[in-house]
């Protein structure tokens, strides 16, 4: 068949939905509030923490009432606003290589341009918490350390260990890991006391943990809604909004409330038979990240084929393991935080390196037709082994996959024609598989 184009697509009349747009509106409101808090922090003399989506330690920082900046999100926003390249080139002019993570450069560029970001003013961090879950986090933290002389706390969560490794709470390795992580939870608490001048309030900590338990439960429920056909939300385009809020508001009642709104809107779509992509024909799983500098075009290449991303591994690893089910025991808050950190991040991060089993489960449970592996030059953390994983899943599990490459935020690496050719060929192959399957 010929490729349908955006222009040929039918205009779809959707039934009026009372909750339509509520998630988007709440998302915008919360992002505005988040920026306002970051903007005001400097004037109010509140110390800001720079953290990362994989292991933000928001549970601890929120207990100290610290505004939390996510530079990955603010870099992503420069791209969505079409401004990333100017910041990236500012950083390159200052000596940063064309071959390093574009998020780092977009952020450095903003800092070098007086911290003026298209959405507000980036705060000067008083503290950096960098987990080892991406090694670039640590290098990024060192850049602010040099710029602002702020402490960088490397929060180390030992991860997947290789052949035959399983996270077993009964194992000696798990206990060793938890001991190490628990000691770091206590070290970070002491450092936050120093930076903020406040005492650690264990009851406030418990409240934050309880909120994360709830956030995780709701997050799992929202993801499961997408097992429905047609998928009520696109894990690519709408998923990114969910991820922004669950990170920025992790541990806050506002984050939990946001997921309730999203869940209600998606449930309504299901009840009304409305899918995220009109006339859904292909259900896809994204492995890697999207291209945010050309986000609409990237999404359009799949939507043109009525392909919906029913899930993504991004919604797993970039959600601080919320999808794995976080269950903090409020009677032993510090110990339990350490245990849950080890348990859930080993699963979620293990899924990034050793992802074939988790991906196979998602393919089964979300009824995925094919996996799109998107390697981005910026991010070796998600991209390095993708071609191998794709080949393995095809060969060993007969799961079709497409491997494409561009970037997160650097539009110079976007090659529309090449991507379109590969994506079109992939959909054609999925159609042939379907036709062969139907004949059998």
């Amino acid at each position, binding site marked *: 068949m010929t490729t349908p184009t955006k222009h040929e697509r039918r205009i779809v009349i959707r039934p009026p939905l009372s909750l339509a747009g509520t998630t988007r509106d709440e998302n915008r409101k919360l992002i505005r509030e988040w920026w306002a808090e970051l903007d005001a922090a400097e004037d109010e003399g509140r110390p800001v923490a720079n953290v990362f989506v994989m292991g933000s330690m928001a549970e601890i920082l929120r207990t100290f009432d610290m505004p939390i900046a996510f530079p990955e999100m603010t870099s992503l926003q420069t791209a969505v606003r079409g401004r990333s390249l100017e910041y990236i080139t500012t950083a390159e002019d200052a000596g940063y290589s064309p071959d390093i993570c574009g998020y780092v450069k977009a952020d450095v560029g903003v800092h070098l341009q007086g911290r003026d970001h298209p959405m507000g003013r980036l705060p000067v961090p008083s503290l950096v918490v960098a987990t080892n879950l991406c090694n670039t986090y640590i290098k990024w933290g060192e850049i602010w350390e040099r710029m602002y002389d702020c402490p960088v706390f490397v929060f180390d969560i030992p991860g997947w260990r290789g052949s035959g490794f399983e996270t077993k709470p009964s194992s000696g390795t798990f206990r060793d890991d938890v001991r190490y992580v628990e000691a770091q939870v206590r070290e970070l608490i002491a450092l936050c006391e120093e930076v903020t001048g406040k005492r650690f309030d264990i009851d406030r900590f418990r409240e934050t943990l309880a909120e994360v338990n709830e956030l995780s439960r709701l997050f799992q429920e929202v993801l499961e809604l997408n097992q429905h056909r047609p998928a009520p939300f696109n894990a690519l385009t709408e998923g990114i909004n969910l991820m922004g809020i669950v990170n920025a508001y992790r541990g806050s009642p506002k984050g939990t409330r946001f997921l309730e709104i999203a869940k209600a809107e998606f449930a309504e779509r299901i009840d009304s038979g409305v899918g995220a992509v009109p006339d859904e024909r292909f259900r896809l799983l994204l492995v890697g990240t999207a291209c945010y500098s050309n986000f609409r075009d990237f999404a359009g290449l799949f939507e043109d084929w009525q392909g919906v991303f029913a899930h993504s591994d991004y919604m797993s690893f970039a959600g601080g393991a919320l999808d794995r089910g976080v269950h903090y025991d409020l009677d032993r808050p510090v110990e339990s935080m350490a245990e849950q950190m080890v348990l859930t991040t080993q699963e979620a991060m293990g899924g990034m390196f*050793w992802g074939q089993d988790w991906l196979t489960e998602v393919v089964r449970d979300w009824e995925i037709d094919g996996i799109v592996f998107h390697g981005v030059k910026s991010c070796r953390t998600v991209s390095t082994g993708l071609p191998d994983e794709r080949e393995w899943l095809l060969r060993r599990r007969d799961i079709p996959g497409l491997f494409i490459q561009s970037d997160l935020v650097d539009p110079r690496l976007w090659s529309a024609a090449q991507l379109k050719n590969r994506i079109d060929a992939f959909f054609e192959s999925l159609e042939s598989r379907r036709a062969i399957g139907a004949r059998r």
Partner: protein
Amino acid sequence: MPTEPIEQIVDEVRAIVEDPSYPAARRWLDTHPDGKVLGHFQVYFPEELAHAAGVLPIKVAGFDTALQIRKADAHLAAFVCSIARSALELVMSGTFDLLDMFVFPPICDVARHSCAVWARNFEDIDCQILYLPHNAASPAAVPYLAGEYRRILREIEEVASTRVTDEALRASIQLFNENRRLIRELYRVKRETPWKLAATEAYLLTRAAGVMPREEHNEILRRALAALEEREGRPQDRIKVVFVGGFCEQPPLDLISVVQDACYIVDDDFMVGLRWILEDVPVDGDPIEALADAYLNRSDYSPVQHDPRKPKEEMLLRKIRESGAEAAIIAAAKMCEPGLEEQVGYSQALFAEGIPHLVMEFEEKSTTFEQTRMEVETFAESLLFEFA
């Protein structure tokens, strides 16, 4: 008895170091038919653990054009450094078919992914990540690392079907202490009398440690040091530099040669893992804890370890001061995220201190160095003029 010329010893090790079929490991297996081989990726691995189990540790540090990449590229994203490709190719191509176990440290995300790629493709090799701690200054890091060393030791014991005693570990530590002492001595000669020992020679002699039994390597170093005592040489009018950027992927030998044609490289971070531990590891207490403590508290620095006690720029400045260097070469392997990021920090610190430096990139597979030669010569000449 007259000592043999150093050139002869260097030629001998060069033949071993540059051969991707690992001839010294093959020879060892000829005499140890049931022996097991443990490979490990850059930067650091406590080889004593393998040695004490009677297992041969081999350090995989990449290859230049001696190894053509044919199969590995299809398994890795395009923007990944060369050493990850050449390491994978070694095994995929069957060139290095001796491995029973392979260990990656979590130095970067390419290394962590590589472990998964290896584990998916080589089911006969026990592929492990030795999770060296990233929170190096935490008081909990040493006990954690000791536990992690014990876990890896159990894996090794299983692969080798043996049990390792503390006595065996202590004996291995002593052997490796001696090896580190000899390498320090070699570096001292290079630092104090660079006209007697070329950087390429010191490099090959050091790197050989990773590809042959340490007993043999200690012997080679003893012979080399004896030969150096006899070697004549007169200082030439060259600037002294520290070269950094060789902590993981290695610059091709020809590139080191190009630099040394114009400068004395008086210190560097080539193969820093072999020299990571700076003092003898004590043998009187628990050997595993001693190794863990040495890794964290008696050790060098590199761009892939954040340790607030060792700010990297300050460490570099100290290296420059202590080696009497006048300038620095700040290199990084192409596509190496941590190395490339570190270049900027180093460069800023050197600017602030007014220390001349040259920033460059390399790839283990590069074959043309004319541009580099021109840059290095211009750099060195301008400095000679300035310092004259």
